[in-house]
């Protein structure tokens, strides 16, 4: 038997928190290890419980979910963080991805969908809608250095400079996502498996985060 996925919920709304806690408690294969009402509480408690997946609300009194992400990822390095949001606001979602989230979950998602999404995230998948893909493409257009024609840049992100680049395959997948293609269609079109599509998307997220960290380092160095 496989170990249950250990989930933590961070949301200032008690009803949402209790509802989700209830859901994970009553679903086989999941375990709710913590439920926190603020980013500060999460930064304090989660390093002890070391959850596999953290569901993080964005707007909370005190530090926002997005702002606490880099710290949270440092203190819980094996946790996958997913932003919990009411709307698919591409700006907020994008900012969370850059800050270290590898997924985002819409709060209205029915329980079965939430469980699938958490399981996916834990298994290495990341969701990307056409809106987010278009946003990512726009960011890349402004920074052509991120686009590479070399196949060697495919695969997991490398930490630190030289800055992460998207390989042609990732770029292809991003283009199709931006046109509203589903993972299944992309897999068929490119002759790869859905699993491979998901792996590429996850690696794009990781590169995006590496890139933003590198940029932050450069900014700090310039200031010094």
């Amino acid at each position, binding site marked *: 038997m496989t170990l249950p996925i250990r989930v933590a919920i961070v949301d200032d709304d008690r009803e949402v928190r209790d509802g989700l806690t209830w859901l994970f408690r009553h679903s086989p294969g999941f375990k709710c290890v913590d439920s926190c009402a603020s980013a500060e509480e999460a930064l304090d408690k989660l390093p002890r419980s070391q959850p596999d997946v953290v569901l993080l609300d964005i707007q909370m009194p005190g530090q926002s979910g997005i702002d606490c992400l880099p710290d949270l990822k440092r203190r819980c390095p094996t946790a996958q963080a997913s932003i919990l949001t009411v709307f698919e606001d591409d700006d907020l979602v994008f900012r969370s991805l850059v800050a270290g989230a590898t997924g985002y979950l819409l709060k209205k998602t029915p329980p079965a969908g939430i469980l699938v999404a958490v399981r996916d995230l834990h298994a290495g998948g990341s969701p990307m809608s056409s809106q987010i893909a*278009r946003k990512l493409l726009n960011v890349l257009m402004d920074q052509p250095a991120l686009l590479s024609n070399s196949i060697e840049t495919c695969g997991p992100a490398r930490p630190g400079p030289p800055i992460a680049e998207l390989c042609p395959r990732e770029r292809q997948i991003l283009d199709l996502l931006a046109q509203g293609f589903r993972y299944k269609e992309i897999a068929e079109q490119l002759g790869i498996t859905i699993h491979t599509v998901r792996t590429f998307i996850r690696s794009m997220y990781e590169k995006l985060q590496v890139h933003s960290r590198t940029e932050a380092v450069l900014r700090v160095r310039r200031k010094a």
Partner: protein
Amino acid sequence: MHDSLGADLTRIVILAEVARHQPGRAGVLQQIERIATISRDLVDSLNELVWATNPRHNTVGALAAYLREYASELLEPAGLSVHFDFPRQLPAQSISGELRRNLFLATKEALNNALKHARATEVRLAFALFDHQVEIVVWDNGCGFHSQPPDPAASHPNLPVPAGYGNGLRNLRERLASAGGVVQLASATGKGTRVSLSAPLVGPLPASDTNRQLREPPARQTP
């Protein structure tokens, strides 16, 4: 504003979800399930409104991608197969928020008709752009309408349409007319339905120009 609306709706979704899993009378549980569904639909509508009113999405490409995604998400879970006929590359052309919203809502209506009334198993969605004109076609292999000639004249507003489709169709025509566009409907019993929505990318003329023909092409300046 929409943030707090959305947060409250989300609370209802989650409370109803927890409540319907508690022991209780069947009738009550059924009603709670309705509440859960309705509030989720409301969050969806609000989400669509947020997308429709954000000027950042005012491009033909963003509209096409959203429609494609919407159709897959609506029809695939219901077991229908969806095929797309979209251009490989869309020019980076801008589209007014008004037209984008109307085309989205009209396409949504047509797709939902295929899902809810037509008993279709297959839907095709086509998107084309030519001569500054957008055309979206929704075709389904469902039951179709009787008393409806399968020709373009079917777009005539006075032709009878079956119960269940009437209101939706009126909505479609009004939406497209307000954008200076037209709806064409072709259907026959057992032969499916084809709904074509087309509208000029350059919207209807301003209200001050109501005397001029809406469908008149823009005047060209001679050198």
